[in-house]
C-alpha cells in the first residue's frame, strides 16, 4: 500500500479508535509525535494503538520494546505496517 494513503487511513483510524473528536486528519502531521508533547496520548492509548494494528492490519506487536519506536508518529506506524506487509507478502 502506498505510504501516503496508509498514513491518511491511520490518521482517521487513530481519531476513531481514541475518540479524538477535536482533531481532524489534516490537523495531525505525519511526523508529529503521538505521545506527550505531540498529540498528548497516554499509556492506555498506546494499548489502543496495539489493538488498532491487530484489528485493522492483523499485525501483533511481537516485541513490546519496539512500541516507542513504532508509535513515535503516524509515519513510523506506516513504515512498520509496510515493513510487516512486505515481509509477509
Amino acid at each position, binding site marked *: 500500500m502506498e505510504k501516503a494513503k496508509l498514513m491518511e487511513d491511520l490518521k482517521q483510524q487513530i481519531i476513531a479508535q481514541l*475518540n*479524538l473528536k*477535536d482533531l481532524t486528519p489534516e490537523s495531525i502531521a505525519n511526523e508529529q509525535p503521538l505521545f506527550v508533547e505531540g498529540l498528548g496520548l497516554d499509556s*492506555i*492509548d498506546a494499548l489502543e494503538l496495539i*489493538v488498532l494494528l491487530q*484489528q485493522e492490519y492483523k499485525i501483533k506487536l511481537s516485541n513490546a520494546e519496539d512500541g516507542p519506536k513504532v508509535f513515535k508518529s503516524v509515519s513510523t506506524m506506516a513504515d512498520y505496517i509496510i515493513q510487516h506487509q512486505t515481509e509477509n507478502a
Partner: protein
Amino acid sequence: MADHKKISAYSIVRNNTVSKNGALIFEYEKDAGANDFLLAAYRQFAINYPKFYKMDNLCKLGIIAAEVLLKDQTFESNDPYATGIVLSNANSSLDTDIKYYDTVANIASPALFVYTLPNIVIGEISIKFSFKGENAFFIFDSFNADFTTHYVNNLFDTTGIHRCICGWVDLPGNDYEAILFLIEKKETLNEQEAFTKENLNNIYYTSNGKS
C-alpha cells in the same frame, strides 16, 4: 460554632437539564440520549478538556456536574489535599461493564476496561481539578443523605480537608442522574444552607422536578 459546615453550592444534572443552586442553566432536547446530551452540555459550558471525549458516560456526567458546581467558586486555600470527594450510586459502573464485556468476544478494549470501576469518576474529577484529598465511592439502592452526612462529617473531623464534594452520580443507560454538593467548613445563619441530611434530602427530592 467554628465546626459548622455549609452547603455552599449544588448542581443537578438529570432529564437532559443542568441546574445550579436551583436555577436551570441548560436544557437539551427531551428525546436525546445520554451520549448526545453529555456532549451538548460539554460544548455549552465550553469545558475545553479533550480527555472528556475518551471518558465513559459516568465520568462525563461527573465532570459536567463538577464543572458546574465549581464554576465561580473561590477558595481561601489552593492546597490540593484540602478537597475531599465522597460519591455514591446504585448502578456502579454497569453501563461501561456491559460495553466492555461486549468487546471481550473480539479484542478486549483497554480504553473501556479502565472505566470498569465506579470510583474512576472521582479520579477523573480529581485530575481535572487537581484535587488530592481523601475520597471514597459507595453503592446504595438510592441516594443516602444520612450516610453521606455521617461519612463527610467524619472526613472533616479526622482528615485535613477543608471542603468536600459529595453526592450522587448514577448512569443506568439514558436514565442518568447527578447531584453534587459543595460542603465547606463555614458558618451560616441560613438554616437551609446547613450541612444536614434533611437539607440534602430536601434539595435532592424537591429540586428540578424530582418528587
